[in-house]
């Protein structure tokens, strides 16, 4: 079991909820928009990655189990 995450740059407006909640999965670019650190999320970070995706008011984060 593992997780893939991606951020849709057209939807992300930089609320910063994701990288506040999951700084090991997402980071902020210079504009405060979200960048995925690694598309494949380590198992230990899967829960926090899901929390972060759920917290995005723009629903900009896609998650898929692989």
């Amino acid at each position, binding site marked *: 079991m593992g997780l893939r995450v991606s951020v849709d740059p057209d939807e992300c*407006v*930089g609320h910063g909820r994701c990288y506040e909640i999951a700084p090991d999965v997402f980071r902020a670019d210079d504009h*405060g928009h979200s960048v995925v650190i690694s598309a494949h999320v380590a198992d230990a970070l899967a829960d926090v990655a899901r929390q972060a995706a*759920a917290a995005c*008011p723009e629903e900009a984060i896609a998650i898929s189990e692989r």
Partner: protein
Amino acid sequence: MSQYDAKAESKAGFNPFDTAVAQNPHAHFKRLRDEAPVSGSPPPFQNFVLSRYEDVRWALKHPELFSSSADAVPIGQDRPLIPLQIDPPEHAKYRRLLDPLFSPKALSVMEDDARKLVNEIIDRFVDDETVDFHAAFAVPVPCTLFLRLMGLPQDHLEQFLTWKDQILRADAGLDDPIENHKASAAIRRDTGKAIYEYFAAAIAARRQDPTDDMLTYLVNAEIEGRRLTDEEVLDVCFLFILAGLDTVTASLDCMMARLAGHAEERRALVEDPSLTVGAVEELLRHETPVTGILRVTTEPVVRHDVEMKEHAIVTCLLHAANMDEREFPDPETVDFRREPNRHIALGAGPHRCLGSHLARLELRVALEEFHRRIPDYALVPGVTLEYTAGIRQVSPLPLVIRPAGTVGGGN
């Protein structure tokens, strides 16, 4: 389908910005969401109110239908406020320029200074028995930090507070309502001119003599290969004053009023300061200091079988949306660990608060330092708090305080 839902109006029609509603808005908001999710006011005014989370978010994410142009928020300025009153796609150009200024990375260098300035403000009243939190803390904190960010001298604080109040709350105090309206508008105009002149001088100084502050950045910034004009820099500064001061003051007021009335929540923060991040989000949601924001329709829009005509003014009630049980289970409960918490107290879509990371930093540092220095406080017994409608300030907010280390304190 009806153009104007008279039934909805009579069932749940109320003015969300009414002072009486502002004291206890949650029950009103629930009725609105349940009975009239698109609530209209009678023609010919054609004003509408959206109150459910999904509807408000949808409207804010569709600027092509719900425009932020100056028609929506006429506050007497000559030019549109940048970026608030510019619609996409033009809007994105300005945000690309401004976002880096307010990114978490850019602001992180400010945290130590913010902590120091906040503590200097606490020093002024920490030995008193009671304090008006609003006047002594919530008002000076954002203004002090704004001056620091802009590289303007701290002794201009009083001048700034006066200007801000004259723009946002100009009232000439005349008996005749029409004369009073005219005179108040004149005060706003004169103040606007004074602010523009002040910043024009500061901008000229930065062009001559660049320093390491936000004004210098703005002056040197380029948009599509050209420098910003003085007018554009001025417009941005003006908006910071309008958007970045009272909002933080109101947030601090609402948050501390809540905590002062709920000792168990206050104690949780004192015992575990790491909860502050979650507390800021949850209190932003529960209190939603900016009650609602305005849009104007660009074409007829239908939602829940109600037609909003072209050029209708639409209030997106952020506070009602943030209390919507369709999105937030048990919305009345304040839970610093609530998850997920997709609140939209800072807006949503392209106009999402530009200063959100600054606001969060200010609120977190302010709450952390206040609770570290003054772990024990309560409302002065017998006072009834009054919330301003719209931007929810609480003035006065009288607290009995007991600083850390006092006998019997810190319980």
